[in-house]
């Protein structure tokens, strides 16, 4: 191993964003993607990323199909950002039923594009992860699977910024919520974006009149 590689290895080994809660909080439990690939929850899915996470299950007859369809519109709006600097994850609430093949079928049925992962794993570990992301502090609600499909958690690990949004909000609103988790942009850029956003709001108001 030459010196350059050695120093790079030392510098990158074990490093994580300074503000991050790290694997001590998120855990590094190994999950499986809908492509049946093993991934560590923090190191592979969260570390240094802007993650958009929701919960579902493949046999859900209620909100999940609508949620997935709505998030698909979000993926389409974000275009090629998904899988590049925004990472979408849907984690099953019923891992006993939802193996990678079932999740793959679900993803394909909904037309999910690459960059959005559906995840399953050990039920005990998935519950631990779920409680790290969402919790009512009421076991009556926390252990009711139907209570956990309504919100999407957005985490920017680099700056440890968390937010959340209803999964059935307008796709544009969800994209805006994702932007709230992004690092603060320079003043000039924010001003330009605000002007553009205001112009869009004004046009929509005009149309509604």
């Amino acid at each position, binding site marked *: 191993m030459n010196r350059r590689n050695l120093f790079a290895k030392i510098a990158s080994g074990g490093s994580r964003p300074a503000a991050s809660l790290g694997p001590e909080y998120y*855990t590094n439990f190994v999950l499986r993607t809908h492509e049946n690939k093993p991934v560590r929850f923090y190191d592979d899915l969260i570390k240094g990323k802007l993650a958009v996470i929701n919960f579902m299950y493949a046999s859900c007859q209620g909100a999940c199909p609508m949620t997935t369809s709505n998030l698909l519109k979000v993926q389409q709006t974000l275009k090629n950002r998904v899988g590049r600097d925004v990472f979408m994850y849907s984690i099953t609430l019923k891992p006993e039923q939802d193996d990678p093949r079932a999740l793959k079928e679900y993803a394909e049925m909904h037309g999910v594009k690459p960059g959005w992962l559906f995840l399953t794993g050990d039920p005990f570990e998935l*519950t*631990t992860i779920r*409680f790290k992301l969402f*919790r009512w*502090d009421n*076991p*009556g609600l926390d252990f009711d699977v139907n209570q956990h499909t309504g919100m999407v958690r957005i985490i920017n690990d680099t700056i440890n910024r968390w937010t959340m949004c209803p999964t059935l909000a307008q796709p544009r609103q969800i994209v805006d919520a994702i932007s709230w988790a992004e690092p603060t942009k320079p003043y000039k850029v924010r001003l330009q974006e605000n002007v553009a956003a205001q112009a869009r709001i004004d046009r929509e108001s005009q149309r509604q009149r």
Partner: protein
Amino acid sequence: MKTAIFLISWTFIFLVANATAFGQKGCEFNIIGMWESASPGESKPTLYRFEPNGTVKVLSRSGSGQKFQEQEIARATYKLDSPKAPKTIEFTSAGGGGILAKGTTSVEIIEYDDAKLTAIKHGSEPIRWVKVDPYRYFVVFAARLGSLRYGGPSFAMTIKTDGRQNRINTFGVYFTETQTIAGPRTDKIVGAIPDEIRNEFMSDANTGSDTMLRLEVTPAEFERSLRLLQGWDGRARGHHLLYEVPYLNNIVFLEELAKGLNNCSERVRLYKLTWDVDDHIIAEQNLTQVAFYYIKELRQLNESLHVKDDKFHEITGLNNLRRGGAAGGQ
């Protein structure tokens, strides 16, 4: 005679189209271990030890009580069509000759649970296999009422015993008091329970301030319970408990443990905590004491299943712990 009995018990050849195998939903079958089968016409049962590596040994047992000898009389390989929910077991003899029949034979399973298996052979009575184990297993729920502010220790124990050695695992919530400059401080700790507290619950005080439910369970129920307990212990050690409030973690654990005992059959009558105003425990009791009242409720619902002190101490020898006796190896 032995050969004939052996051949009869080994020649279960039958794929009955109409026979269907079932176990309860959520009940995973585990064939590993020792089974005793009583075939029609057998004067004494035959033992089958199924190993994890796919071999099965057929044994005869002589002697009685703790002094018995096992003698291998045959060996074969076995295969389940579905390890966790089988409908057939296929045996293949390792070699011909002697008392072993050569070739492959299949047994149709018509029902099973944690500890029993019923198979059928065409034209015969069903053959029942019962799982044999030298150990006995207990799951104990225990709690003390304690103060309104903190409650008392509340936890569960799993105990595996052969009468000489006991393996005890615990998980729950307990309290430590330390003196600080600012005054006494009480810390609530979620995790394995210290021996001195655990030992206080080796006898059933059955007072208004102490409660317990002690259940003898099957090996499979024990393994499930131990796995759950160890999982929660792992959460505590890894600082991944579900809630910041210690009492919530403990109550959820106790309820999961109780529910898990009914995975394969409705053995234990449960009290469902709804966490709503219609739940008399949640509505009327302080959170610090919910675990106590939950266990008390379980005891009332399952009084007939509760293993009393005299029987428990006779089986485990765990009746001298208050006087400093050893709990046995873990």
